[in-house]
């Protein structure tokens, strides 16, 4: 909402300078977005009179003027304009001046002739013909009458004004008007507020109801429809004062009738519309729902398809306007209109909003209506319009108002307790002070009974808490003493799952990975890209009904696409290596179509490429489980069933026989689908199992008192035997003194033979209560070797 200060000051005498005003009114709750000064960018442009015009010796299209700008010396200015004659008064941009859009003007030479400035057109000063209808369309602006020379043109026109842009919150429809803001300003400064005096002389006599009748078919969507009739309309530009105000408020002046409707809308917040009365069949206005499939051509020339949810203004034959949005071309006022009808109606806010949205046609009127207007201003507004018609001599107002207002909105009474208001705010505002604040915003206060009567333009005041806010904002939010909540003490902490999640993150970071953050929705195309089976449950998704586009249309059921897309970005930008992780949710519907909230499963995803192999990423995963005290419980096994993973280089991650993740190399085809030309390593781990099985309890074990004995063995086995099988055999047969089994070499090559591999271990024994003797260890090793040989056909290698 743009509010010109000169306009506002007509209703309340604000004396603070603009910056102070902005700060003061912001602190009482009318938020200012910024302000501009009209003509503020024009500097050093003054009135001048042309004394002489001579031809330019070297340019046919230029002339040399001699201009008097009220100084001792006359200036020589070269111009290309053809609309000038000697004696004309014109705007002159002097040397070192600024015109519109920050353009600077300096003295210079034009085809060899010194030009000490520039004569300006209205456009060069940032205005147009709507602002100055008397201006020449393609030429220098010429003042219609003599002006004092050497004066700043902005001052001569009297258009300098500060325009303040307010952000109006949805609870204050009354503030979408100059009057509404003026009322707030008056309350802010505790100064009088002058509501405009509205008087209509109605010289045309007669009676409006003889000209027009109004019927509201749907009073819920149209609580009020007030109309006045104006005869003998004379359409012409409105006077400069009105044009200046409209212009300042950001509305382009058109003609007196249109300007009056806009003026009233800006001043009072009530949109108006003017119809040519001869275009209304039977002179009967019917406010009704549109028919499905009904069409209307709106004033902007577009055909609009309507449906039965929309409200139209109609006559017995046809719709003449989309209610609250835009008038129809069929009833637009033409030059010869004999009589016009001014509509000042109230429509249901959200209905107008939905209609405007459906039609893709959000207008000044609809954006006012959608906040929900007070029906009680409709009558004042139509009278104000009539008053302006008379003031401008735009026509003769017929007596009377056709006012259809079936259910009058009445003011209401709220009770309040000064004590409770103070208790909520933490203040000590006196009863008297509260009363004064309420009266400032036009509430009627009954001090004895602690009640107020709320004017109908303040629908936001519904209960005591709302009154508390009124007290707070005029008492001053800044005067409320900050305190630290006493109340019952509480302990601040993170939950177990939050602590474990943080540990996982910290662990990923210490393993050299960077944390990623991705969108939770993606394209359904990712399933094909990831080669996920057609009948997979992952393809059952929570689908957004109004997405930004297909690419953002489903809530992800796998985190893979996001991490691969991020890796692809890195690869594409030639980052040599990248290691990313993300802890994010997947959204698994309980059923499709979705009728209840989906399961949201927190998932750890790791994605890496670069100088590395499977065992690097597995090491990261193992380290994490170690830190979480659950590595003993976690088991890895060959996993060949995940279609998007390398079938020979992927391990399932299980706990108590239940799989909760996998780690391995991405299938090269999938890497290629993402345009990643190198091996990609992936781990996906469900966080709920991590949180359930993590064991953060630490227990001290006595440090060993007796020495350990270590034996190294190397064996040759079939390449299909896994180290896990070997370790199981060792652990099962090593006896009570086994301390650790450590793999230190795996070798495949010529010396071993095809289909075989050599595996070497360090096996450490230790007893807690004695020094082991040779026999203890030899016996254990014998058992181990025998079983390796019998169960896995292992052959001991000579060292």
């Amino acid at each position, binding site marked *: 909402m743009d509010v010109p200060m000169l306009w506002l000051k007509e209703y309340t005498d604000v004396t603070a300078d603009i910056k102070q005003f902005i700060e003061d009114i912001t602190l009482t709750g009318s938020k200012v977005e910024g302000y501009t000064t009209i003509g503020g960018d024009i500097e050093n442009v003054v009135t001048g009179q042309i004394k002489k015009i001579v031809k330019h010796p070297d340019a046919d299209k230029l002339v040399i003027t001699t201009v008097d700008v009220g100084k001792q010396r006359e200036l020589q200015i070269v111009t290309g304009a053809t609309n000038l004659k000697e004696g004309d008064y014109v705007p002159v941009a002097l040397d070192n001046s600024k015109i519109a859009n920050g353009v600077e003007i300096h003295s210079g030479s034009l085809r060899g002739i010194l030009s000490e400035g520039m004569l300006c057109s209205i456009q060069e000063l940032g205005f147009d013909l709507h602002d100055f209808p008397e201006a020449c369309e393609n030429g220098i602006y010429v003042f219609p009458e003599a002006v004092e020379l050497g004066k700043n043109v902005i001052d001569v026109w009297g258009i300098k004004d500060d325009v303040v842009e307010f952000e109006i919150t949805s609870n204050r429809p009354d503030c979408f008007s100059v009057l509404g803001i003026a009322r707030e300003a008056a309350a802010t400064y505790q100064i009088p507020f002058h509501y405009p005096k509205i008087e209509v002389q109605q010289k045309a006599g007669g009676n409006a109801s003889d000209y027009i009748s109004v019927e509201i078919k749907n009073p819920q969507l149209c609580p009020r429809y007030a109309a006045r009739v104006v005869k003998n309309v004379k359409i012409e530009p409105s006077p400069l004062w009105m044009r200046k105000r409209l212009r300042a408020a950001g509305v382009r002046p058109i003609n007196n009738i249109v300007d009056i409707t806009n003026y009233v809308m800006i001043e009072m917040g009530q949109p108006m519309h003017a119809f040519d009365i001869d275009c209304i069949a039977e002179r009967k206005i019917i406010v009704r729902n549109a028919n499905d499939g009904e069409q209307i051509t709106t004033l902007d020339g577009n055909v609009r398809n309507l449906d039965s949810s929309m409200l139209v203004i109609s006559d017995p034959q046809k719709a003449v306007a989309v209610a609250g949005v835009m008038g129809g071309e069929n009833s637009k006022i033409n030059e010869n209109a004999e009589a016009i009808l001014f509509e000042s109606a109230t429509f249901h*806010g959200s209905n107008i909003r939905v209609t405007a*949205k459906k039609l893709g046609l959000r207008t000044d009127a609809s954006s006012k209506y959608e906040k929900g207007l007070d029906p009680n201003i409709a009558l004042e507004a139509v009278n104000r319009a009539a008053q302006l018609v008379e003031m401008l001599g735009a026509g003769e107002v017929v007596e009377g108002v056709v006012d259809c207002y079936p259910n009058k909105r009445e003011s209401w009474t709220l009770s309040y307790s000064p004590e409770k208001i103070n208790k909520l705010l933490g203040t000590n505002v006196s009863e008297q002070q509260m009363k004064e604040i309420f009266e400032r915003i036009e509430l009627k206060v009954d001090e004895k009974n602690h009640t107020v009567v709320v004017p109908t333009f303040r629908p936001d005041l519904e209960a005591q808490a709302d009154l508390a806010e009124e007290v707070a904002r005029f008492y001053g939010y800044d005067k409320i003493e900050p305190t630290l909540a006493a109340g019952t003490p509480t302990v601040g902490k*993170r939950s177990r799952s*939050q602590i474990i999640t943080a540990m996982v993150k910290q662990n990923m970071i210490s393993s050299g990975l960077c944390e990623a953050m991705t969108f939770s929705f993606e394209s359904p195309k990712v399933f094909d890209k990831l080669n996920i089976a057609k009948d997979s449950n992952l393809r059952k998704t929570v689908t957004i009904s109004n997405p930004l586009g297909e690419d953002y249309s489903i809530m992800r059921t796998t985190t893979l696409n996001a991490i691969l897309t991020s890796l692809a970005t890195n690869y594409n930008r030639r980052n040599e290596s990248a290691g990313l992780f993300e802890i994010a949710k997947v959204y698994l519907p309980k059923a499709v179509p979705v009728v209840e*909230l989906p399961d949201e499963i927190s998932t750890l995803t790791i994605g890496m490429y670069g100088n590395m192999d499977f065992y690097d990423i597995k090491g990261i995963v193992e380290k994490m489980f170690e830190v979480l005290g659950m590595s003993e419980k976690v088991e890895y096994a060959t996993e060949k069933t995940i279609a998007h993973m390398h079938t020979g280089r992927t391990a399932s991650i299980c706990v108590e026989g239940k799989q909760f993740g996998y780690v391995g190399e991405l299938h090269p085809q999938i890497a290629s689908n993402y345009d990643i030309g190198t091996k990609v390593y992936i781990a996906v781990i469900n966080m709920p199992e991590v949180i359930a099985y993590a064991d953060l309890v630490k227990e001290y074990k006595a440090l060993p008192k007796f020495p350990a004995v270590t034996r190294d063995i190397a064996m040759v086995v079939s390449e299909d035997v896994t180290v896990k099988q070997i370790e199981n055999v060792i652990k099962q047969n090593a006896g009570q003194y086994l301390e650790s089994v450590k793999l230190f070499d795996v070798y495949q090559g010529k010396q071993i033979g095809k289909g075989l591999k050599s595996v070497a271990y360090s096996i450490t024994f230790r007893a807690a209560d004695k020094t082991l003797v040779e026999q203890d260890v030899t016996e254990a090793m014998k058992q181990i070797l025998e079983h390796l040989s019998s169960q896995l056909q292992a052959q001991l290698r000579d060292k």
Partner: protein
Amino acid sequence: MKQKLKEIHNKALTTLSEIKQMKELEEAKVKLLGKKGELTAVLKEMGKLSKEERPVIGQLANEVRQDIEKKLEEAKKHILAVEQQIKLEAEKIDVTMPGRKCECGHKHPMSIVIDEISDIFIGMGYEIAEGPDVEKDYYNFEALNIPKDHPAKDEQDTFYVNGDILLRTQTSPVQVRVMEKGKLPIRVVCPGTVYRSDEVDATHSPVFHQLEGLVVDKGITMGDLKGALAVFAKELFGENVKVRFRPHHFPFTEPSAEMDVTCFACGGKGCRVCKGEGYIELLGCGMVHPKVLKMSGIDPEEYSGFAFGMGLERVAMQRYGITDLRLLFENDVKFLKQF
């Protein structure tokens, strides 16, 4: 003989003082003290001495021997120290070459901000609450006093799954879920992902993060709201930051306010970053609306509370000087490694 010993002694001291290398030292030792050495040769002649002279000369010879041994030892130490020093010099390296670093990963800047803010509130006695991203219309709107036809419910802002289920547009529904549990008093903050139907550009993202706070207890005042948030702002932005509360409107709080903090760039003088205002808008807050308390089963006559909510991307972007929001979601390691 006495004279001879003295000569040997003096000569030895001179020799030792001139020796620079270990090999010379070894040679000198043999020459002085060895079996064929000078001192030994003198001692061999002891038998020729008288009974009276013998102990005197013997003692002197011993003293000379001990002193030479001592000096030999000293010379050895000195030579060793010199030799070691030479060796150290020979081992010199270019210490300006870079060290070997254990490659460490990096937290996402958003996580840094979320964790830091969460920790501030944990220190003030708050717990961290969580709630679902895919949320019921009831929790996201209705229970927050946003009635059916409120403009905020308009499709242009909200992603819907169906009429009743949507992607939360704010973290505020977590407030309702916490209140519904009925465990009082409440002090929680809830950071989380929220969704709004905005096209992706340098300052907009359909997915972003908010942090919500809620305190409900007996006798909570607007002064308490101001106090808590002022402490928070000082913790986050430093001791010198000033806060300003302006009246505003939110359906779920009454009275409502917006809190501004003095501009981090100019400290409140007014600059390009704060558009000359000196202040930057940080969060929305207010006293929990009695209707909201009531709908969640809390008696507004007995309890009161305050709530606040803030966008976190802006905090991160301002803190790190990030000018394009899209960088936060691209995950380029060149970007992530800067934090």
